[in-house]
């Protein structure tokens, strides 16, 4: 048995072992940047715990993400548990500006606005407030239109740029 398995791993070692992991659908931002990785902590019994939170309830990537974390910990010889925690509910508001820029560079428009305002925009019919503009991640034009509010994954909507004519995904405010 190697040393890492005999001694409780430091929390920094746990963090380092999983730092490179990302959502399989969005490989450009890390789990921490996306807000899925909530915390690395020591459980009551001294075992390290990796706390994750699901994005959408039915997101099929969550199972894959959990498996990826377990595999990365195993490969590093680290004994730790994966804990799923629902509250507080995941929100796109947790994405830092740097992560938003990485999404944009990858071709996914980052969330347009805060989640709380998005809720008010979403519900309400005749009086629905106009949403914030969605700039095209390629040419920057705000002359864009929604093709469908439900896209290739639960977290995205389909858009199209009316200037450069490219279709693109929007990471929905949630």
């Amino acid at each position: 048995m190697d040393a890492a398995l005999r001694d409780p791993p430091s929390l920094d070692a746990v963090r380092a072992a999983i730092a490179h992991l990302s959502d399989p659908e969005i490989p450009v931002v890390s789990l921490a940047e996306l807000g899925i990785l909530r915390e690395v902590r020591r459980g009551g019994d001294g075992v390290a715990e990796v706390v994750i939170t699901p994005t959408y309830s039915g997101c099929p990537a969550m199972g894959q993400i959990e498996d990826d974390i377990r595999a990365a910990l195993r490969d590093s010889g680290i004994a730790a548990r994966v804990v799923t925690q629902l509250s507080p509910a995941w929100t796109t508001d947790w994405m830092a500006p740097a992560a938003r820029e990485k999404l944009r560079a990858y071709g996914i428009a980052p969330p347009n606005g805060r989640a709380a305002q998005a809720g008010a925009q979403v519900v309400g019919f005749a009086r629905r407030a106009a949403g914030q503009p969605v700039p095209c991640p390629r040419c920057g034009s705000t002359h864009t239109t929604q093709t469908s509010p439900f896209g290739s994954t639960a977290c995205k909507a389909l858009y199209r740029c009316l200037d450069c004519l490219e279709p693109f995904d929007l990471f929905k405010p949630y």
Partner: protein
Amino acid sequence: MGAGDSAPVDYLLHLADNALVLGQRNAEWCGHGPILEEDLALANHALDHLGQARLLYQHAARCINAEPAQAQRFAHLQGARADGALTEDSLAYFRATHEFRNFTLLELPHHGPLAGPARADRDFATTTVRNVLYAALMNLWWERLQASADPQLAAIAAKSLKEVRYHLSHAGDWLVRLGDGTDESRARAQAALDHLMPHTQEFWTGDEAESAAVANGTGVALAELKPAWDALLDEVLAEATLRRPADGGYVTQGKRGLHSEHMGFLLAEMQSLAREHPQAVW
């Protein structure tokens, strides 16, 4: 978590069954959507509902396993157990028709009234109207359940509310488009509304599970939400230029396990694989 902190098992199952059954119905459009984008949208809806159902079944299974009287009540469920304990799969795949607690509205096929196993083409207006009626309810219900005394149910509610807001917006947009659309789309939307509206009476009639949940602070008396639901619905119908039919007639009782003739066929399709391979793991 002490037993007093969790919602009654039947209340959790009612919420979970609603989500699972409507998720199963909406998933029937996968590969058959009127346009590709709508195919994706309905599959996304179904996925959200499936996710909500899983969280609720997992919670219900923990409550059942923790309490001997409940464990005894569900001891007859076969298959899909982990170390002898009930799992989400036992609840979804191994309960019979009369054990499901979903609203009858949610199990109806995507077309007007037809008896028995008769199948017709899927009618998108029926799907749309149902999604509006149910999403409007869930917007209000999940919002209130965020303050449930059951912390796990409150956490599930906070997540689900975000999802169901998108569902209501999407289905509402479609209803406006259909109602205020061509003669054909308008006639179909009105017919679907006339057909489905009486089933919503079931929302407002309490039952034992709801009373128990209200009593221990974990649930909501849905009748209190009716004025807000009426207002949401009237707003959509006004923009869709549709006529709101009067409620009345038989009040369905799916949440008490008394289902329509369509429920057995839905479960047969959904459960057959798991029942054929009861020890399967996926």
